[in-house]
């Protein structure tokens, strides 16, 4: 069965995380001698993802790997794939409750969910930050825009962990920057102007973190303010080396892609597969940023 064709639909095509995921998927495809296509929308948005998905279904691949852009809104569109006889596996994000094939819920049909849990990643960021700050101080989340499930979950996990385990850390209002690093920088400076004692920022995606780091740099506050980034493309890693970013919560997108394709292959060849595979996180900070072992977790560009 070497003419199998699997399509990987990322949350958006222009993000190092998903590009790295595709790299992992291609590695698996090469190993298996099958084909994996990469097709997606320009923004993380169900309105844009649905037409792409529809067209992919029209093309009729043997399986679909998808990072659904909304847990509720993508159920109906994905059901069409399932009804057309195309096995669905979700990667990075999930639909419904994320627990598949247990007979409960509207979105029970995907075979497997392979991801590092964004909420858990947010919690991890919170723990790291709180420890850096000695368990007290003011922090805020720099986020893209409301309504994006992955970044919303990171923020949610971050806030939940702070509330549960670090009562002395005050989490200020979230600031939305529309993916504009320049606005994120100006927002940090405004937050700082209001709260001169600010001691941490959690950048929920690349541009939020880049912008926050730049704001910290302009304010000469690199020593006082802890910046945590989610995801680890090279530009964030460079900022860790230079000390502007304290740590990055790196997911393992290549692994997700690799296991995704392997799982799909298993489904297509009639084998049973686990309904969920967790791929975990690596925290990259000044201590390990130059280790050879860390290099493989840095996202490709």
């Amino acid at each position, binding site marked *: 069965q070497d003419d199998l064709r699997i399509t990987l639909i990322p949350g958006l095509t222009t993000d190092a995380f998903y590009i790295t995921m595709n790299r992992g998927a291609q590695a698996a495809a090469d190993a298996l001698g099958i084909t994996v*296509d990469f097709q997606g929308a*320009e923004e993380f*948005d169900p309105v*844009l993802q649905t*037409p792409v998905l529809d067209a992919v279904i*029209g093309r009729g691949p043997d399986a679909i790997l998808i990072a659904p852009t909304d847990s509720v809104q993508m159920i*109906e569109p994905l059901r069409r794939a399932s009804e057309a006889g195309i096995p669905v596996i979700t990667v990075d994000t999930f639909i419904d409750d994320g627990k598949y094939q247990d007979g409960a819920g509207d979105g029970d049909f995907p075979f497997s969910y392979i991801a590092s849990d964004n909420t858990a990643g947010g919690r991890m960021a919170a723990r790291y930050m709180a420890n850096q700050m000695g368990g007290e101080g003011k922090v805020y989340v720099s986020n893209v825009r409301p309504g994006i499930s992955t970044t919303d979950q990171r923020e949610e996990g971050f806030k939940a962990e702070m509330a549960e385990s670090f009562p002395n850390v005050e989490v200020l209002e979230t600031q939305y920057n529309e993916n504009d690093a320049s606005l994120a920088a100006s927002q940090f400076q405004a937050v700082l102007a209001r709260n001169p004692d600010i001691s941490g920022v959690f950048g929920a995606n690349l541009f939020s973190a880049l912008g926050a780091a730049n704001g910290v740099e302009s304010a000469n506050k690199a020593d006082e303010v802890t910046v945590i980034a989610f995801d680890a493309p090279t530009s964030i890693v460079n900022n860790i080396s230079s000390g502007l970013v304290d740590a990055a919560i790196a997911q393992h997108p290549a692994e997700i892609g690799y296991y995704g394709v392997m799982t799909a292959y298993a489904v297509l060849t009639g084998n049973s597969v686990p309904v969920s595979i967790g791929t975990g996180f690596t925290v990259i900070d000044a201590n390990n940023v130059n280790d050879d072992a860390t290099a493989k977790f840095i996202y490709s560009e």
Partner: protein
Amino acid sequence: MRSLLNAWSWLFLILILGFFEIYAQTQTGSTLLFRIYNLQAISIAASQILLLGLGLTLVIVAGHIDLSIAFSTGFAAVVMALIVRTAGADAGWVTVILAMLAGLGAAALVGAVNGWLVAILNVPSFIGTLGTYGIARGAALIVAGGATVSIRNDHTRAFGNGDILGLPVPLVVAAVLTLVCHYLLKHTRFGAHTYALGANRASVERAGVNVKKHLILLFILSAFTAGIGGLIYTSRFSAGAANAGEPILLYAVAAVFIGGASLTGGQGTITGTVIGAFIIAVIQFGLVFCGLPPYWQFVAVGLVIIVAVLVDQSKDRLMGGKS
């Protein structure tokens, strides 16, 4: 003569469909055109663009623009979803319809504010509707508490994903509204005044038309069709999202302009906008269907948009009208 030449845009649409079909037949041995599923998917995508583009066409013909539809859609979607959710999973048709009316009311409110700003306070429409864009966005997010409002209701789901005589409901709704807007723009006094307004506001004012009222109605209409887009959205996805319309705004505007409208007003037709919406939906579907790598798709969409307008213009050259 004149109306026959509109055939050019149809021709272009048919050309790209033909191109994709040939590609599908020869390269993948499948078919694009002759599968109901594909046609349905394309027409649903086109409907969503169209619902934002219909009222917008009239606004643009009148020489204005409405950016706020990006969030009139979201506002309507969120308001409807909230009411359906509050009513519970087994809310009946009546409740659903009331929820839809409430959603439309929310959208129409945005439209009325736009009309007031543009018609009464003389705020340029670009900037006035950019303001209400922000306001409607904030309002939708505040009402929804920031997240998407998910609902579970069999009626809404049937409405959003069902079909009537084999045609998907969104397509049927868009088709009905298209007819209404086409009638309005082409066959009524309201439409004639809209064209005249785009060419020369003074001509309409001096002819004794109440231009302020006219403008207010235009912006309400625009918000209204966009709001219907929001209702369809909530029904299709069983969730109301404040962002529901935002990613489509640019496509809707593009559809109107591909359809022959111009920034300066006085031109444009509903038929043109329909063709524009379908051209966009077809290339988006077709490019993925053909497996063009994603970044190349941006380039291809850009090229097709330009070529669509060039084709549309070549008819003027044939008419020999210009220089």
